[in-house]
């Protein structure tokens, strides 16, 4: 168990991460995708919503490197534009869910006893609120709003995070190093954040890398139900959904957004694994 200061912990982690080749490649891929998503729409000579009804369903070629869709819109412009939305939704909602879920789960698991039972039953009750109804209620009460979408998704995703964190906390609570910290008379806050949190980071990061794609897909399902982003805006999820409907006639409509989507998920995943190893205090002993 390490009692190092956090700054050196961070530096060690960075060094360990740099040594992991897959993670570094993933990091560069993610940066690349983010770059293309931010600057791609400006680089393209077409707007994401610019139509040309005479050139619909064109396969990838010189003018349109990714081809065109059913209204003759440039798929490159739409894919990169969609990237902005999907990445923003995915990251922001995940951060929201992490902050809520981890603190809730850790607190509940650490305190234990009756408070823990009630906190977990509250989570169960929230689980029982079907997501669509929750989102429709939000949309009806507050109107359509992009920010609301993040909150809605984040507010739902934290529940599983809380359960996982809590189970892990319960598991670690009885470990020797926590007992030792307690015996040394450290405050609860210090135990929670200095000792418990670093040991939780593994499962949390892995689950977070799973949450990002889940959120992106959720956004697609919301678009599927007509509750997501408004047409003619695009997101990877909605593009993939449209592409799936036309996959035998115009496979590129599924292929390109799909590649971007998968590539980001792969990269996130390997980066997540790398981070897990790098941040794991125990791995320093190996």
């Amino acid at each position: 168990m390490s009692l190092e200061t956090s700054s050196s912990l961070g530096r060690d982690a960075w060094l360990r991460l740099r040594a992991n080749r897959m993670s570094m490649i993933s990091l560069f891929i993610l940066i690349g995708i983010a770059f293309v998503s931010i600057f791609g729409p400006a680089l393209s000579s077409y707007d994401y919503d610019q139509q040309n009804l005479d050139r619909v369903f064109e396969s990838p070629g010189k003018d349109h490197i990714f081809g065109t869709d059913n209204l003759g819109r440039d798929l490159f412009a739409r894919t990169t534009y969609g990237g902005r939305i999907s990445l923003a939704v995915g990251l922001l909602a995940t951060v929201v869910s992490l902050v809520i879920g981890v603190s809730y789960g850790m607190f509940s698991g650490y305190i234990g006893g009756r408070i823990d039972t009630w906190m977990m039953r509250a989570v169960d009750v929230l689980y029982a609120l079907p997501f669509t109804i929750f989102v429709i209620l939000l949309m009806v009460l507050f109107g359509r709003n992009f920010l609301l979408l993040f909150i809605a998704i984040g507010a739902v995703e934290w529940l599983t995070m809380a359960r996982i964190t809590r189970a892990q906390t319960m598991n670690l609570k009885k470990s020797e190093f926590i007992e030792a910290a307690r015996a040394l008379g450290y405050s609860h806050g210090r135990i929670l954040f200095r000792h418990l949190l670093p040991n939780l980071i593994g499962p949390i990061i892995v689950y977070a890398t799973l949450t990002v794609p889940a959120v992106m897909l959720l956004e697609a399902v919301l678009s599927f139900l007509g509750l997501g982003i408004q047409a003619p805006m695009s997101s990877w999820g909605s593009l993939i959904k449209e592409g799936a409907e036309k996959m035998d006639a115009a496979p590129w409509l599924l292929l390109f957004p799909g590649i971007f989507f998968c590539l980001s998920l792969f990269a996130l995943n390997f980066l997540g694994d790398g981070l897990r190893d790098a941040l794991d205090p125990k791995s320093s002993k190996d």
Partner: protein
Amino acid sequence: MTRYAPGGPFDAEKAIPQEIKVKLESHFGLDRPLFDQYLLYLKNLLRGDLGPSFKYSGWEVSELIATAFPVSLTLGVLSLGIALFIGIPAGIMAALRKNTWLDYLPMSLSMAGICLPTFVLGPLLIYIFSTQLGLFPPLGWYGPSDWFLPSFTLGLFYAAYVARLTRAGMLETLQQDYVRTARAKGATPWRVVTRHALRGGLLPVVTYLGPAFAGLVSGSFVIESIFFIPGLGKFFVTAAFNRDYTMVLGTVLFYASLIILLNLLVDLLQAWIDPKARQTR
């Protein structure tokens, strides 16, 4: 994929005169004060009566749920079975052979499983196994041969999650002192996994199982829509869209009881698996 408007552009654009609306509302008791409505609902609930559905005229909510639940349960159990049988072995293998191709391959496949949302995977599987090979029916829920494609579509998605959680959990426990001790004592890797590491390693999976299973058996709207399956998922979504209040309350209550039951089971299972958690009880 779905034309969402009930009946599409055709019907119900007839405006309902105000006096008729009042009649409709009084029929369902919507004109009474909210608190009275609530009391009445609770009273009926105690008798197991969830009230009539607004959307499916002539049908009781409890009757509709009772018909659809066995369908969703079958689909859910099969999918979960597929998810566990694929996910757990893949996750264990990846953890044991960390950073080798035996790790990268199943983990990449599992990522691919997550990348392929059900509305892509479903039509894809139909195209291969039904349209091209003619092995399974493309839709419906009439016999066991209809079960394969939907449960596989749903199962693969969950298998991906299970594999990743298993791997993470296994890596965690393989570093625990008691596992190291067992290893140091010269236990075979097989024995280390089955006797010592697996219990702890499956902990995140077990935690995940409760909500996942509740989600599975309460139906999946997308799968039901693609494969034309009369399951529960559709009721959840359409009830909200149609303002079918009794159906919303009915499905929510049903789902809530299911979730609480499953989470209790998960807690018990956790206690049984994890010796440390057991001590605390």
